[in-house]
């Protein structure tokens, strides 16, 4: 039997790789993929909790997370397209309209 902690460690590792990607990549699409990575990291821990606690509600939560991820991907990618159309770039460090 694999201990729960291993799964949680794995989940944390995936999540943190996502965080790292989000904080460091210039390409906005890769940043977006990093967000998906973070969501998957969370999903892993929820599924493993569901298994170890013998409670299906963890899986329900994952179900909802996937729903939201799909919605988020649709909206986010639409935003990226709109952005690219206006700026002709997908690099976030080239967009600084919000600079004070």
């Amino acid at each position: 039997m694999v201990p729960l902690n291993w799964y949680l460690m794995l989940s944390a590792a995936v999540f943190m790789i996502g965080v790292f990607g989000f904080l460091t990549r210039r390409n906005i699409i890769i940043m977006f993929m990093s967000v998906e990575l973070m969501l998957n990291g969370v999903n892993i821990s929820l599924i493993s909790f569901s298994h170890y606690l013998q409670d299906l509600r963890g899986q329900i939560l994952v179900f909802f997370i996937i729903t939201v991820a799909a919605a988020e991907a649709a909206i986010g990618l639409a935003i990226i397209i709109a952005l690219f159309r206006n700026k002709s770039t997908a690099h976030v460090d080239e967009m600084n309209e919000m600079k004070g």
Partner: protein
Amino acid sequence: MNNYLLIPFLPLAAFLINILLGRNFLKEKAHWVSILAVAGSWVVAVMTLVDILAGHKINQDLYTWIVSGNFKVSVGFLIDELTAVMLIVVTTCSTLIHIYSVGYMHGDKGYYRFFAYLSLFTFCMLMLVMANNFLQLYFGWEGVGLCSYFLIGYYFDKKSASDAGKKAFIVNRFGDFGFGLGIIMIFLTFGTIYYEPVFAQAGGFANNTVNFLGYDVHLMTLIALLLFCGSIGKSAQMPLHVWLPDAMEGPTPVSALIHAATMVTAGVFLVARCSPIFSLSETALMVVALTGAITSLFAATIGLVQNDIKRIIAYSTISQLGYMFLACGVGAYTAGVFHLYTHAFFKALLFLCAGSVMHAMAGELNLQKMGGLKKYMPVTYLTMLLASLSIAGVPGFAGFFSKDEILWLAYSGPSPVGKFVWLIGTIVAFLTAFYSFRLIFLTFHGKFRGTHEQEHHLHESPKFMTIPLMLLCVGAIASGWVGIPHLLGGGAHFTEFMKPVLGHPEGHGTHAEEWMVMAISVIAGFSGIGLAYFMYLKRADIPVKIAQQFSGVHRLLFNKYYVDELYSFLIVRPAIWTAKNILIGITDAKIIEAIVNGVPKAIGIFSEQLRKFQTGRLQHYASIMALGILIIIALMLWR
């Protein structure tokens, strides 16, 4: 027996309807809402009076207004004999004056506004008299002051009118400040501001003193005098009387309702309502009596020489209010309230007649340009004559009974200043008769002294105006009949009716003395009328001669003892100087502007640094957010 609630709330509803819908929907029909509401109030008030006569009494809390610690105030109603009389006075005058206004204000551009304010005033006045605690009284008190301000400044595009409104409001502040302090003192002393417990406990504090500004002051005297401050302001007594004559800038129905019949009598009502407190302090009563007496004499002498028809009646009002305070000051609260009640009718009538005259004269106010109006406006003439007979104290009319009762109780009462104020009261009775008939003779008798155009224009007023005149005239004649003294074979029902609230005034004197006092006052009244007749009809050259002979006195009286000028010198100009030089020059320019300009400058410098955080880079924001999460988790773990 809850329908008494309709009395104040019908006018409130009328106000709301008129102010919200008047401009766009009701327009020329605005008066119907108000008249129906106030007439409804009147009907309920009469029903309530019948109930009170049957011996009922209402004291009910309707709604908890404020609860704070042991300070509790409700919107509550107390209807006893005193309130019932005030209700009748207020609703009757208000109804008739509402009707009169239909004719008088016809075609005015703020028609709906006028009726809205008039109804709001009625509501506030009714809240004032129906209150069962001091704070609600204060609410009504300020409410009527506010309406008074609105209505004095009704013609707000006229500078003198808006100035007069401000003057009334500001002068009243002086009095109301004292009144407010009085209510606070009552709360500090009794721990409640409801009438019933306060008056019930008042006797227990009769000998207490309180440290006030370093002196030990008799507690009840202090409270009574602070409350009386409010009365002085609202009822235009010396030295805060200056606002009332100027208040005549408002439309005449307003002068009749607010500045003659109801609002200005609120001060008398307050003293009567607080009679259990005032009775405990001889000093306070003496102050009340002397203030009343001096004011009445003072205002009456000014009234002798004025030429503005409304101002004469305004000074007459001040003088009669002084009379009421005189009565209260000698302990004859019932007589004071009785005079309040009769005065409301004949003084409202006088004002409405004056309004009718103004209507015919196209707004002319100067007596010297009138004359001979008798044949053009018979109804106005007759009703005004009867009202003047009433105020002059001609036997049989309402004013006679109330005035006689005041004078008799002043003469025979236990007050140390009783004899003195009686003397002044008698002199004032003479002066009142004189100036009232001077007004009648100059306006209605003799030859017309105005322009030809005005003469062509002369006409009797429309039915909407004359009918209220006639109805009020009935009141001016007959309202006194409920209080015919025992001496004349009457039952003195009014005094008996008021006894549970105001107590029974004691007069010690023989019947012979009572006859003598009555005779003297009647003689004073008749000689006043006679003198006016002689001076203004028989020998019209005499007044001019007298004015020349005593030009100094005449000028002093004509300029109202220069009180306005004195205030201007002592208060208004220093206040304006301070405002200009200190407030604008130093506070505003050096302090406020420095702060106002300095703060943005400081913010500018600060934000100049702060904006460097706003790099516009998505990842910087995300990093800072992640860092924040890191810190929060770390704090939660190793707290």
